[in-house]
């Protein structure tokens, strides 16, 4: 441990994460309390600073003390005095707040030793957690805006495009179209006015990588965008951000202002003669606006409805002018490629998918958070090494990649390489980078229903397959989850899903059936159980589950009876309690409140437990014969 000597504190800086995850854990208050305490203690040499999202949201709020590299997890305001006195003043790190390995339980003091971080390779997220996102000088100190200088002083637009093409960078927004080629189309398109648009309308439930990038390192997005604008010849730019990301909006606006003050944006940038103005547009809550033509319609002030391509935005985009639309992560990668070269970048990843990809790892996983890994990594490495596996000794069931329109892959795909082609072949996709892990308690029919309910609600309504097809599919899935499925439903879902996929106008409809089609492919037995046996194997679908109080275990304590919200439990002191199955709303309260030592409530699906018709005296603990004689 690099325990610094007491008194040598003038070098230390404590960085508190102020990403949205940690902010919901009151990291603003923690920062304020730290500053106050450091001042009160007279620790003039100690800096209290903040950063964007460290990615390890599961452990939030997190803080890192540099140069010691000590990582504190789940910090609260109450921990502040101890951190200040023990660590910042006396140089003794607070072991109590160290991260503990979920498997071994061992405390790990250093940031770099935590598996969650050590297996990652951070290119897009390179600065996040290491700089204060509200200070442009921090970004510059990390080599920021050097690539822009290089591009403007030494490279022609054609050379920039060639470099990006050579790097093999593909769009990180979902479809994976080669970024350099996209720029080239727009560069070659005829037009007096061209536009550069940054797609920051990250609407996938369970995905927050674009938000974290903008909150943690907004300048890299601006730098990438300016380089892209130079390459295509655009003088106006738009960043389209979800209004639900107020912190990201705030930091991007601040970064724009700083960048303009420094001369990295505006007229005649760095004396090159190249000018660019960037405007922020806030989305108004429509997932479909992540689709590029819908996004353009929304910037123009219209209903966010996509239109058919061709013509592609490269030729006819915003107000009919040539337009390039790139995702936040694609743009954040650009400055690194320019700085370190296409060959360096292309050395990471697979043959067709170069570089790294960012995932928001969530669901039934020990280490939720934001990760960046090289393309070609195995799903198993992400889930078990970085993610720390499934908590609570539960069994892995499926992993869903690519947001609500991605597919659910079973255990047999865990050794699948993570790249555009392999995921597509498996029926899923890279998407924008959501990754949700599911365990044995997750019902795959319900999951398919859940994802489809999201995409169905977000359908813009323009084209028939998406508008009506997803609705019909959702109706069928809801029926199946209610136990009203019919044997032919699976065939209809399969066929309808395939047709919606092929027939829909835009990416939303073209991918919406993926969760249904993949669960039909890999978890067909769960559909069959729901339809044929009226049974939910994961005990998740409410209509198909029931609760019983086991007569041989109930002690007649009455806790369940008192807590039942609908009064459907009959019983008395020392009498076996009975649930009226007709009245039960299956809320599960009885199971939750039944004392662990009795464990008398059982949740089942597709079966019935023999119970007496009316409360009988408790037999639990008495000889079995007595119990049997009590039964009717």
């Amino acid at each position: 441990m690099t325990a610094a000597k007491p008194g040598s504190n003038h070098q230390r800086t404590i960085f508190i994460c102020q990403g949205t995850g940690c902010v919901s854990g009151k990291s603003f208050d923690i920062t304020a309390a730290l500053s106050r305490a450091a001042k009160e203690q007279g620790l003039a040499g100690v800096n209290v600073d903040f950063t964007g999202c460290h990615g390890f949201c599961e452990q939030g709020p997190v803080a890192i003390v540099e140069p010691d590299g000590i990582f504190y997890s789940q910090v609260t305001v109450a921990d502040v005095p101890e951190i200040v006195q023990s660590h910042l003043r006396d140089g003794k790190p607070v072991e109590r707040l160290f991260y503990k390995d979920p498997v071994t339980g061992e405390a790990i003091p250093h940031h770099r030793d935590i598996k969650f971080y050590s297996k990652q390779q951070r290119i897009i997220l390179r600065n996040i957690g290491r700089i204060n996102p509200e200070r442009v000088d921090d970004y510059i100190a990390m080599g920021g805006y050097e690539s822009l200088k290089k591009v403007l002083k030494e490279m022609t637009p054609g050379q920039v495009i060639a470099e990006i093409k050579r790097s093999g960078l593909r769009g990180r927004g979902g479809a994976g179209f080669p970024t350099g080629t996209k720029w080239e189309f727009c560069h070659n398109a005829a037009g007096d006015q061209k536009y550069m648009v940054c797609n920051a309308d990250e609407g996938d439930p369970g995905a927050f990588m674009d938000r974290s990038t903008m909150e943690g390192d907004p300048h890299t997005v601006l730098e990438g965008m300016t380089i892209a604008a130079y390459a295509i010849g655009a003088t106006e730019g738009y960043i389209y951000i979800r209004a639900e990301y107020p912190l990201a909006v705030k930091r991007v606006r601040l970064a724009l202002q700083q960048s303009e003050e420094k001369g990295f944006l505006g007229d005649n940038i760095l004396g090159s003669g190249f000018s660019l103005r960037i405007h922020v547009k806030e989305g108004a809550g429509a997932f479909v606006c992540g689709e590029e033509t819908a996004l353009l319609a929304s910037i123009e002030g219209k209903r966010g409805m996509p239109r058919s391509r061709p013509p592609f935005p490269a030729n006819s985009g915003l107000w009919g002018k040539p337009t390039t639309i790139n995702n936040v992560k694609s743009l954040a990668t650009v400055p690194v490629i320019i700085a370190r070269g296409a060959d360096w970048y292309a050395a990471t990843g697979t043959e067709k998918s170069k570089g790294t990809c960012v995932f928001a790892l969530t669901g039934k996983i020990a280490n939720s958070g934001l990760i960046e890994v090289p393309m070609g990594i195995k799903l198993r490495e992400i889930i078990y090494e970085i993610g720390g596996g499934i908590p609570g000794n539960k069994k892995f069931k499926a992993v869903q990649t690519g947001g609500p329109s991605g597919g659910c892959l079973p255990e047999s795909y865990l050794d699948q390489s993570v790249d555009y082609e392999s995921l597509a072949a498996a029926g899923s996709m890279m998407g924008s980078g959501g990754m949700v892990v599911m365990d044995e308690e997750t019902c795959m029919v319900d999951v398919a229903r859940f994802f489809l309910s999201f995409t169905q609600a977000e359908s813009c309504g323009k084209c028939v397959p998406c508008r009506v097809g997803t609705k019909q599919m959702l109706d069928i899935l809801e029926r199946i989850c209610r136990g009203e499925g019919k044997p032919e439903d699976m065939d209809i879902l399969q066929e309808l899903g395939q047709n919606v996929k092929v027939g829909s106008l835009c990416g939303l409809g073209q991918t919406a059936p993926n969760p249904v089609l993949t669960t039909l492919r890999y978890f067909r037995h769960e559909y069959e159980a729901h339809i044929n046996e009226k049974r939910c194997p994961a005990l998740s679908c409410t209509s198909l589950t029931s609760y019983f109080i086991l007569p041989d275990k109930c002690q007649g304590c009455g806790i369940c009876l008192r807590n039942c919200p609908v009064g459907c439990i009959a019983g008395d002191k020392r009498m076996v309690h009975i649930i009226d199955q007709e009245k039960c709303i299956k809320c599960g309260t009885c199971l939750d409140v039944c004392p662990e030592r009795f464990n008398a409530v059982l949740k089942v699906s597709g079966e019935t437990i023999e119970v007496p018709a009316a409360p009988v005296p408790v037999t639990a603990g008495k000889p079995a014969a007595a119990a049997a004689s009590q039964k009717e």
Partner: protein
Amino acid sequence: MTKADVQDKLKEVFSHFHGEQQELIPLLQETQARFRYLPAAAMREIARFLHMPEATVYGVSTFYAQFKLTPLGKRIVRVCRGTACHVRGSSKVLAEMEKQLGVKAGETTEDREYTLETVACIGACALAPTMTIDSETYGKMTTKKVAEVLGDSSKAG
């Protein structure tokens, strides 16, 4: 609210805009921030200001989930229905919230105290299931915490 009130408030909003069509969505956002919803009279004024058909303004207002055509409650409760929250049981949290407030998602309580909404993702997936009341975020929610959280917020208000 009288027509004159609406016009007064809007005059101030309009002063930040030029009257171009592409300003419709930001204009609606700012208008909603003032009125806490989009009154019909305001939408009509906006159509006039931007020289566009009233039906177009209505079409845009009803397309985006952010815009509300009826007044919102004093506090906005948003239960996250993102994937991470779903697999960690947000539907139960939502059901409990609906029960406690006596309204369905998307509705406002009769006393106009609360508006209950769902949100696709607030991006605090590691704290799933999550919910927010106004700008306050509550993580790792359970059905039991619902009443607690509501009590907490009414004290704060």
